[in-house]
Each structure stands twice: as structure tokens, then as C-alpha cells.
């Protein structure tokens, strides 16, 4: 059986323990290590996955890596802006909020393309066929700075001429795409906004959870959440080594294992228009008046 990388909260605690050990081990190398930021919003931590990623980067480049875990995108972005961390795996939405300070350096390939989309999901036994039928729901978002888990839904409501704060009876953030699925599956929320990549990946790892939900609406395609570096780290050797490790991820056994666990195909450099669709949604929201 495949090792699930989208794990429960208990898994996170285990991962933290693992991270502490890794951090302590890498302390000796001090500043030579690359500090890499993560959130459970997108990547629900699995220490095995992180260990393999470390192993791959170290094997292919000799670069040590230090993981820094925060609950929200906002916290990780703050660390990036402060230069506390060198790189992070972020969503396109927070990236675009700081175009001068943050830069996307690599985009994962999912099903052969650097794209993903947002799903609106609801309970499997509910007979609704369109977005409008979700009016009055208790709705679960993942993170306020998540494109697929917040921005897409808000923008879509604006496109439909709705007021997002009034369309749903009640909304809350779960700070994790998997948590959105859990909230809907357990009927805590009647509907939720979730990353389509995470949702589909759960089909392999937690099919029973997914079986209690179904997709009501799928958004257009957007640029896949990229690996981002802060302006302080740009042009450094560490950045170059990180990029080489990511683009050559299929070259090592550990790297291939990472891709298998993430159900991804590899990493590619971003294109200038990779996140244009997200930028359009941001404009829509900011111009709402």
C-alpha cells in the first residue's frame, strides 16, 4: 500500500517531532542549510516524505535543508519577507500579493501540466447541481490566502453578482485542504472550497473520506502552487542548488519516491503567464468596490 502523505493531525505531531530531530541534526551545519517553509494548508506533513525530500536534495546537491512549519500562508509569507526562511511551497495568491519581494522559481507538474483548479464540494447525499444551490450553507474555506480554497470561490460569487459575505450563512477556515474535505464529510460544513489536486490525491489515500463528498463545481485551470523564494535568497548558491535538486528530482530514488508520494510528475520553471488567471481573480476581488 502506498504511504499516505496527506495525514491526520496526529501525523503532524509526529512530523513535528521528526522536524525537531532534523533541525537539531542540521544545526551543526548552521547557516549552510536551506530553510524551507511549509504549511499544512497545502502539504499536510508527513515526516517520511520530508525525510526523502531532504535525502534527495542532499544526495543531488549536498545542500542541507531545514523545514520551518507554520499554520497559515500568512505566517510563512511573513517569514519569507523577513528573510527568516529562504524558500517555501506557497499558493499563487500570496505570491502575487508581494510581486516585488517573492518569486516563483519552480512549479510542480500534475498530470503532466503545471496547472490545477479549485473544487466546490458538498455532502455525497445532497442533490445540488450548481453553485447557486449552495446559498445559505455553512461553508468551509481552507486559508484566507489560498487561491483554490478561498479566492476562487469568492471571485466566482462576485462574478455571479452575489455578495460573498451574505451568500453563505456561515463560513470558517480549516487551514488545510484535507480539513475542508473532513469538514464536509463529517457534515460540519454543508459545502467547502478545496484544492482539486489535493481532493483527487485523497482518492488514493483516503477513499472512504472522499466517498462522503462529491464535487458540485470545478473552476478554470490556474497555475499550480509554486516553490517561492524571498528576495534575500534570490541569486544565492542555496537557491541554485535547490532549483537543481527540484528540476532533477527524478534522478534519485528518494526524489522519485517523493514524486510518487505527492502524486506529481516533476518540477518545471514557471512561465511569465503562469499565474495570470489568479491575478485576474485578485483584481476582480480588489475592484469589487
Amino acid at each position, binding site marked *: 500500500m502506498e504511504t499516505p502523505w496527506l495525514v491526520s*493531525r496526529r501525523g503532524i505531531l509526529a512530523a513535528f517531532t521528526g522536524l525537531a530531530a532534523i533541525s537539531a541534526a542540521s544545526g551543526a551545519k548552521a547557516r549552510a542549510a536551506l530553510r524551507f517553509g511549509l504549511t499544512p494548508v497545502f502539504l499536510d506533513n508527513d515526516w517520511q516524505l520530508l525525510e526523502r525530500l531532504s535525502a534527495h536534495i542532499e544526495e543531488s546537491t549536498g545542500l542541507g535543508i531545514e523545514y520551518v512549519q507554520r499554520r497559515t500562508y500568512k505566517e510563512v509569507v511573513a517569514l519569507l519577507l523577513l528573510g527568516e526562511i529562504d524558500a517555501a511551497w506557497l499558493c499563487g495568491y500570496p505570491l502575487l500579493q508581494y510581486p516585488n519581494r517573492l518569486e516563483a522559481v519552480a512549479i510542480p507538474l500534475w498530470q503532466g501540466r503545471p496547472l490545477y483548479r479549485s473544487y466546490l464540494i458538498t455532502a455525497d447525499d445532497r442533490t445540488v447541481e450548481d453553485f447557486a444551490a449552495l446559498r445559505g450553507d*455553512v461553508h*468551509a474555506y481552507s486559508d484566507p490566502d489560498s487561491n483554490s480554497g478561498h479566492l476562487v470561490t469568492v471571485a466566482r460569487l462576485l462574478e455571479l453578482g452575489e455578495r460573498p459575505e451574505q451568500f453563505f*450563512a*456561515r463560513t*470558517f*477556515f*480549516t*487551514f488545510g485542504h484535507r*480539513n475542508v474535505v473532513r*469538514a464536509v464529510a*463529517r*457534515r*460540519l460544513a454543508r459545502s467547502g472550497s478545496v484544492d482539486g489536486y489535493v481532493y483527487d490525491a485523497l482518492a488514493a489515500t483516503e477513499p472512504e473520506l472522499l466517498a462522503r463528498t462529491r464535487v458540485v463545481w470545478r473552476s478554470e485551470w490556474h497555475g499550480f502552487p509554486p516553490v517561492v523564494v524571498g528576495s534575500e535568497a534570490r541569486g544565492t548558491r542555496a537557491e541554485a542548488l535547490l532549483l537543481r535538486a527540484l528540476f532533477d528530482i527524478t534522478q534519485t530514488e528518494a526524489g522519485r519516491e517523493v514524486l510518487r508520494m505527492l502524486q506529481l510528475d516533476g518540477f518545471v520553471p514557471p512561465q511569465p503567464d503562469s499565474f495570470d488567471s489568479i491575478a485576474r481573480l485578485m483584481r476582480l476581488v480588489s475592484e469589487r468596490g
Partner: protein
Amino acid sequence: MRLPLAMPLSLRVPLLVAGLMVLMGIVASQLVLSALNRAQVRQLTDLAEIEFRALSTSLGPYVQRDDIWEMFDILDRATLREGSFRPISAALVDARGRVMVSSLPEAHPIGSNGAGLVEEAIRLDDIRFDAASERIAVRNTVVWQGRPLGQLVIDFDVQEFAAERRRALFSLLLGNAAAILILSVAGYALMRRVLAPVRRLTREMEQPGGTPQPIAEALIPARDAELAQLYHNYNGLILAVQARTATERRLAERERYVSLGRLAGGLAHEINNPLGGLLNTVDTIRTYPDRPDVVRDSAELLERGLKHLRDVSRTTLDMHRNDDGASPEKVQLALQDFDDLHLLIRPEIERKAQILDWRIEADGSCCKGLPAGSVRQIALNLLLNAAAVTGPGGKLGLRVKPDGDSLCLCVWDAGPGFSDSVKPRLLSDEPVEPGGGLGLRVVRDLVKSLGGTIDLGRSVHGQNEVRVRLPLRGRHV
């Protein structure tokens, strides 16, 4: 509880012990269960307090920030825990009675009415535990930094506690049942053992068809003073009864000889009377041997006299045969027996110059089935008694007549009647007081043995009369 009195002591005592054990078992079980209940409630309260404290501390900051997901996650994780006392579900209800979050959102969605949840739950400081319930809902206020944030209602799984109580009850029932059974059986065995000497005594007293015998000295339990005393008393009683029976038998024998003596006197008189005439006749024959007419007349006279003597001696022999017990019961009564009786009693009557009224109104068929010896003895004793109580020249009589299925013998006399001290001899089985004859008691015993009855009454002439009714056709006891 009333035990049937007919139940033997060896059963009654174990049953009483079993009953007392049941009663004691119920009381003890109640005490144990109530103690267990108190202990369980204390334990439940302690565990619930720990749970509430932990959850309140975890929930506090999230409630303040209205972080629904974290609140849900905390409650959800609490219900996923293993253990004998774990929350099955938990819900947080705000001050307006609305559900803030529940671990069972399907049953209690966010914003739904949660007042019922709070009302149905018992307060943390007032936990009660119903043995039948497998879950209890407990509520307490969540306070964060001194501010009440809402009511936390936790549904606890108490199956393990209920099961423990059921197990305790089952063990108590099983233990009590076993104890009752063992004690009852042991009690029964013990009582059987304790009562064994009493049962032996009972068996001795119930000897079928035989007379009770004293218990041998070797069989008397020496170690048990009370039982030994009982056995000795019993033996004393048996010996006293045997002595009395022997005395009565001796007295009866004496009475019989007395009556025989009186009869013998009469008999001698009866023989003596004709003897003088007969001797004279012998002299006459000797004097006139050559006168055939005189010899013939004398011979006839001699024959009559000798026949009379033969009759007298035969009657006496019959009585004697009766006395010897040569199966007198096999000789059936005939009217001839009354003639013999008449012959026997007549000397006594004549000696006292009394008048005897002799009426035999029955025919031979009326006497069938009755033993001759017994009936003759009954009639003779009653007639001798009548002759004795009737003064010289007085009247007495016998009347024999059929009375349905019985033969009635009525003996009357002109005497003063039976005194109160004499009546019991004839009419009851009371012990015979010393100082009197046993003739009447012999009459009673014989009548009883023939299944008959005795009444006292008045004859047609107004005299005292004894009426003996003897059933025919062999209805003897």
C-alpha cells in the same frame, strides 16, 4: 412465610435456613451494589471533571476566536479516544442556546437549537448513574480567563461501568445461589443426622401390627443427654404399658377362674342333686333285682339322670374348650348354645331363688357367622353380673332377637343399675381401676373384637338393660 406443618423437620429447617440466606443475600447484595454505585459515581465524577478541565482548557482560546474548525477538531479527537470512560459525543452551546459546534454535526448542526441538549444533561457536580443506562450526558460551563463562554455537554460512554455492575450483580446472584444451595443441602444432611435418633424412635413406635418394644441400651445415644433421656422415657413408657397389659391379663384370667369357680359350685350342686336320686335308684335295683318293671323304671330313671349329667358336663367342657383357645372362633353359634347357657346359669339362679326370664326369639339362621365361645362368654358374664347385682328373689332375664344385620342380646335385671365407677369397664377403653372384677371389661373386649356395640337402656318392664349388638356375616374387626 408459613411452611406447611406436614413438612418433616429435616426439610423445614434447611428451607428456613435457605429462606434466611436468601433474605441475607438480598440485603448484602443491596449493600454491595449501593457501595459499588457510590464508588462508580465518585469515579465517574472524577473522570468527568478531568475531561471537562482538559477540554475547557483546549477549547477556551478557540471559542474566544470563534475558530469552528479547531473547536470541532478538539471535540472530535476527544471522542475518538479509546477507554472505558470516553466521550461518545460532545457539543458546545452558547449562552443563547445555539450549538456553536458539535462532534456530531449531522445531529447538531452549527447554529441549531441546543437548549434541549443542555436541559437533558446532568450537572457535573450532580452526577447520578442509572444502572440501566449505557451513556450519560453531563454539562459544565466552559470558562476562559474568567469569562464563561458556553455550556459544554459531553455524552459519556458508561457501558463498562454498567457491565461492571451487571457482573457484580451476576456474581452476587451466583454466589448467593451457590451458598444457599450448599447450606441447604448441608442443613438437610445435618438435620437428617441430628434427627436420626428421633426417626428411630418414631419407627419403633410405628411397628406395624406389633407391640412397641423398648430400645436396646446399646442403641441409646450416650453422648446426647437429651436424646438419651427421651429414649429412657420411651423405654419406661413401653415397660409401664407392658406391665399394665400383663396385669390386666392376669386380672382377666383371675376373673375367669372366679366365674368358673362360681359355675363349678353350681355345677357341683347340679350334679349333687340328681346323684342322691341316682344312688337311691341303684339301691332300688339292688333291692329288687328280680322285678323287671322296677329295674326298667329304675334304668330309665338312671338314664335320664345320667343324660342330665352328660349334658351338664358337656356344656362345661364346651366352655372349657373355649378357655383352652382350641379354635373356639371356628365353632359357630347355634341356638343349642343358649340352652347350654340356661343350664349353666340355672344353678346360680336357683341358689339365689331368683326368677329368670329366658326369651330366645331368634332362629338358627340369625346366629350364623358368630363365634359360639365369645357370644356364650358375653352372655354368661352379663347374666352372672345381673344375678350378682339382683338381690335374692329378684328378677332378671335374657332376650335374644335379630335386629337387622345384627343379633341383639339384651340382659336386664331388677338391680340398681351400673354405678359411674363401673360403667367405664363396659363402655370405654379406660384403664380398669383396681378393686373390681374384670368380667365387664372382658365383655367389652369381646364385643369390640366382634365389631359390635354396647348400649345401656331400659327394658320393656322398665328395668336396667344392657344391649349388645353383634353384626352378622363375619364383620369382625
